[in-house]
């Protein structure tokens, strides 16, 4: 039983790869339990070993199915995999239905695979801070690879690039017109493009279009990563080994080219900014509600401009944060 066990105690068990301890600490991180902070600070020292892969793409592109297949490849190669699967929460109730497990059913009951579903709740859109801390926990828990699966709408796809070492964009044939790839902006963010459902006759067209677009954006140079287009088919169970190899090649490329240093810096920046944003938002919404309301009224009545109100709130906050953190 781990109920009411201190987070510091659980942190020790996370390092031993204890799945229940990982699961419970993710819960505490998600519920913003202040008691968990010290344990997370301690565990952060044990992170940085896992290769973090972001998987994004429009709804229905086949991300969950791809993850299920990819995980089997990793398992066959002897590596353990942690998965953070993110689904959007309702903007009205804040609740969410997390259905990624439906397609990942057969993966559980393998201790080398850990799946956690999370909702986007409480973020400005995009990858939530708790999701990134869940990645830390899986990393500290000894998982070799951590996959973050997220819906590629709006901010998420930019966020995932700033949180992962390798970003995989899943494209499905027949979704949208010829220029959809450029319009959606997914071209630039991918380290690897997947064309799913490659058993379908129209997949070749999608593959060719992507290749043409990628060729146009190529800069000349020796150490340039050439974004591969990998066709996969879950019908035929094909292409997933190739996808794993492409991810591995990208990891090697990051190390050899030295790009990994810049990626790590980018990830650190994202993480720090996200936490800072959260602290500010919490403060505005929860801790200084009366003052916020007062200022909102002044802004509404044109007695103060939004910038002035924001600066006033931040100044008032400065002292309090100093005390609280």
């Amino acid at each position, binding site marked *: *039983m*781990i*109920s*009411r066990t201190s987070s510091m105690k659980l942190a020790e068990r996370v390092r031993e790869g204890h*799945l*229940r301890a990982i*699961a*419970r600490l*993710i*819960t505490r991180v*998600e*519920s*913003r*339990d202040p008691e968990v902070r010290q344990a997370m600070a301690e565990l952060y020292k044990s992170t940085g070993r896992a290769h973090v892969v972001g998987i994004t793409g429009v709804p229905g592109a086949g991300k969950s199915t791809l993850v299920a297949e990819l995980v089997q490849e990793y398992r066959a190669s002897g590596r353990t995999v942690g998965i953070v699967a993110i689904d959007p*929460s*309702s*903007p*009205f*109730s*804040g*609740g*969410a*239905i*997390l*259905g990624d*497990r*439906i*397609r990942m*059913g057969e993966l*559980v*009951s393998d201790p080398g695979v*850990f*799946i*956690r*579903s*999370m*909702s986007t*709740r*409480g973020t400005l859109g995009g990858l939530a801070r*708790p999701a990134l801390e869940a990645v830390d926990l899986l990393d500290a828990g000894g998982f070799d690879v951590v996959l973050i699966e997220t819906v590629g709408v709006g901010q998420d796809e930019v966020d995932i690039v700033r949180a992962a070492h390798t970003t995989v964009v899943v494209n499905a044939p027949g979704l949208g017109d010829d220029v959809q790839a450029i319009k959606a902006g997914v071209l630039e963010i991918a380290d690897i493009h997947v064309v799913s459902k490659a058993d379908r006759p129209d997949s070749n067209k999608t593959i060719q279009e992507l290749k043409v677009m990628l060729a146009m954006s190529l800069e000349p140079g020796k150490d340039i990563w050439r974004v591969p287009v990998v066709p996969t088919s879950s019908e035929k169970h094909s292409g997933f080994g190739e996808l794993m190899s492409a991810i591995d090649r990208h990891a090697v490329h990051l190390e050899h080219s030295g790009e990994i240093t810049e990626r790590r810096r980018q990830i650190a920046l994202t993480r720090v900014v996200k936490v800072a944003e959260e602290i500010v*938002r*919490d403060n*505005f*919404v*929860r801790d200084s509600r009366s003052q916020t309301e007062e200022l909102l009224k002044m802004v509404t009545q044109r007695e103060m401009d939004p910038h002035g109100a924001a600066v006033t709130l931040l100044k008032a906050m400065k002292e309090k944060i100093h005390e609280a953190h």
Partner: protein
Amino acid sequence: MQNNDNSANVIRVMLAKIGLDGHDRGIKVVARALRDAGMDVVYTGLHRTPEEVVDAAIQEDVDILGISLLSGAHMHIFPKVLELLKAKEADDMIVAGGGVIPDDDVEELYQMGVHKILLQDTPPQEVIDSFRQLVADRGAR
């Protein structure tokens, strides 16, 4: 911004279908109702084994594991689930059942350690209220 506050203490529920039971209309209605009440609902899909469901519930660290059974196999499946939770030191998880279950069995299931049985004609609001109550009664974990 009004949704920012409720990040804390969101109730997490797993809804599961175990065994040869293809009736998922009810469980999907419940999933939607719980979501609309602000809960995070993990749905397993059909035809899971008790082992798969218990392992998944542990990884998801849900407050409540809700199992819907319309196949008549409840007296076989609930003991199995409770036994697995105990073996994996996860018997602090709240277990709820729903579906078509005869009255005599309901009593026996409660004695076995199932926390709540909600039969097929339970209104969604009652499911929401009883789930909130179960989590409140359990307290911090």
